[in-house]
């Protein structure tokens, strides 16, 4: 099922859309030793969701979203390690604000361009942040990473523990809030207009849509989401390293997203879950074959299954439905 803002489709949250949250809560009770992996997965889901908003919905092909993920992570980390602000909510707010600023400022400059130029600009901006983080050793820790991050208990009550219980809940709740907001945005007239821009930006401009402004808004919102994800990563790891800003990790995130399916919200859920669990189980034993497999999978998806895993599910469901359509009533549009 694709989730698009539409003037004729109901935005009600379907039953199946509650499934991930059910699983999320169940995992806490059934897999207590895997909570830190779980928290990391939740963070990457949020990160993927933010990328889906720009790449999948607004159609902005960016390779530089790690800039915002990294900025959020470093903002929270620096605030704690260098300024001494340990309150997680405050860290989160500062991360969001700085990503909003960077997103708006860079977006205003680069979203006028398209194609290779845009790709290059997003890449270069992420590269600049990486270089700054690498060289401003006294603030960021440089290649050593930023350690000495302490995070105070949430609301003074819940301490971040070794097993990652608190971190897991924090990530789950924050992801839930961000998902809810993102979903509303996608189903709003604004979200519909983003899809319009993705499908045909020339025509959107000709019907009087402020295309650049819409893209800038989407870009900034997405930057903020990525910033939240980054800050969460810092708080769960209590450490920030340069690789949050690296091109490899940006590429890896795109892999997760395309694996799940682009432009359909839940692709951002399915992708990281499948990818990271597989990685946890397989990558340790077969590091070489792991990246070989990822590469082959990516090529295969691009060539044969552009919609990712969820796209395949759609096809199967559509096929099954067609089989019984003589009895089934109206088919969902």
């Amino acid at each position, binding site marked *: 099922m694709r989730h698009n803002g539409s003037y004729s489709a109901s935005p009600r949250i379907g039953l199946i859309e509650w499934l991930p949250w059910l699983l999320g809560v169940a995992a806490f009770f*059934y*897999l207590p030793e895997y909570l830190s992996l779980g928290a990391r997965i939740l963070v990457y889901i949020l990160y993927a969701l933010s990328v889906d908003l720009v790449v999948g919905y607004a159609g902005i092909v960016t390779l530089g979203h790690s800039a915002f993920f990294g900025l959020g992570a470093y903002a929270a980390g620096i605030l704690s390690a260098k300024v001494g602000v340990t309150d997680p909510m405050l860290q989160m707010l500062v991360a969001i604000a700085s990503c909003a600023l960077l997103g708006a400022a860079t977006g205003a400059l680069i979203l006028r361009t398209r194609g290779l130029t845009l790709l290059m600009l997003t890449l270069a901006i992420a590269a600049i942040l990486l270089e700054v983080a690498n*060289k401003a*050793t006294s603030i960021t820790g440089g290649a050593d*990473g930023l350690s000495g991050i302490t995070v105070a208990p949430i609301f003074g009550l819940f301490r971040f523990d070794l097993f990652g219980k608190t971190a897991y809940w924090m990530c789950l709740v924050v992801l839930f809030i961000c998902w809810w907001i993102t979903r509303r945005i996608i189903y709003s007239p604004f979200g519909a207009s983003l899809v319009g821009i993705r499908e045909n930006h020339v025509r959107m401009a000709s019907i009087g849509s402020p295309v650049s402004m819409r893209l800038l808004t989407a870009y900034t919102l997405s930057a903020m989401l990525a910033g939240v994800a980054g800050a969460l990563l810092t708080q769960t*790891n209590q450490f920030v*390293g340069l690789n949050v800003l690296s091109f490899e990790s940006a590429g890896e995130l795109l892999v997760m997203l395309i694996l799940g399916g682009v432009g359909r919200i839940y692709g951002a859920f399915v992708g990281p879950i499948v990818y990271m669990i597989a990685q946890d189980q397989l990558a340790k034993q077969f590091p070489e074959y792991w990246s070989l497999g990822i590469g082959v999978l990516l090529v295969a998806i691009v060539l044969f299954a552009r919609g990712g895993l969820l796209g395949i599910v759609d096809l199967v469901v559509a096929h099954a439905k067609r089989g019984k359509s003589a009895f089934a009533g109206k088919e969902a549009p």
Partner: protein
Amino acid sequence: MKSRTAFKIGLGLVASVLAMSATAQTVKIGFISTYSGPMASLGEEMERAVKLYMKLNGDKLPAGVKVELVARDDGGPNPDKGKQLAQELIVRDHVNFLAGVVWTPSAIAIAPLVTEAKVPFIVMNAGGSVITTLSPYIVRTSFTLWQAAYPMGQWAAKKYKRAYIAVSDFAPGHDSEAAFEKGFVTGGGEIVGRVRMPVSNPDFIPFMQRAKDAKPDIVFSFIPGGVQSTQIMKAFGDLGLAKAGVKFVGTGDIVSDEELPNMGDAPLGAVTAHHYSTAGDRPANKAFLAAWHKEYGAKATPNFLSVASYDGMDAIYTAIREQNGKIDPDQTIAILKNYKNPNSPRGPIAIDPETRDIIQNEYIRETRRVNGEMANVEIETIPDAKDYWKVFNGKK
């Protein structure tokens, strides 16, 4: 309904299979090192040493006690990966010891975890001075960069006046820069220039050119050993610094023993300070080398990472023996604080009870051709070298 029950059972199964913990008499050692990425050779040197020690010393364990090594790859200097692996080793695998760790940043990132989980952590390579101060559960059997670079500076100051410093831009590099500078400047030398180079895969030529153009008497360098040491040696040679009368000095990393055969003549005459060289003329070292060659072939060469890992395992085995296989973290640390080995391949070593850091001999070595092979020949010994950073700064 049915499917939900099935789901619950499935989850439960997965959880219980994965949660199978260590049996009573198995001591688990979580070992983190680098097996992939450009620095993969480092992990191999360490793991070979650990496995060799375990193979040769199985009989030194108390009856019924087994040691299990759980090895993990951090893929290079990725502190967050290292930290994540440590967390998993502690929480999922319930290890009794953490060991290994090539990179100082990773060790720093892991420190708070071992404090919270009370898991003794034996650092087998990472040489940043600060590490042992970050947790009471950290013991180091390798070295610190201050230990090598400070005496190197003192030694160089007696012969040369002008030094150029070129180090990798991360904590160990910064440490060695500060340590060399302190030793060299206190001894009356002058630093004529400095540069910090990227940590992975740089082209050293522009940096060495810059060093050459500053016209120093010596270039002091630290880079994370392995293949990079060959690269920097090549750059030093190609730019003709030696021909221009510039001496290359550094910590032992720039002339790692296992890379010496690849370097050609470039390192001839380089002077380095280090705690281990395969050319070290000690019975313990000879025995160690013999065992190594027997196990891994005549061409395989151990290096300082191997020795630190070998000694680290000896420390762990000592702790296991003295507690008869029942590992209590605090008691372990108490035992390790007083660990001594007069017959390590690198000479006598001991853990400083005050700082939990290593005390060992530092050797000033010159790279020479011995019997047609390049070797780091020990020419001076500085006995019982501590971590000078802690000495000067009163840190524990």
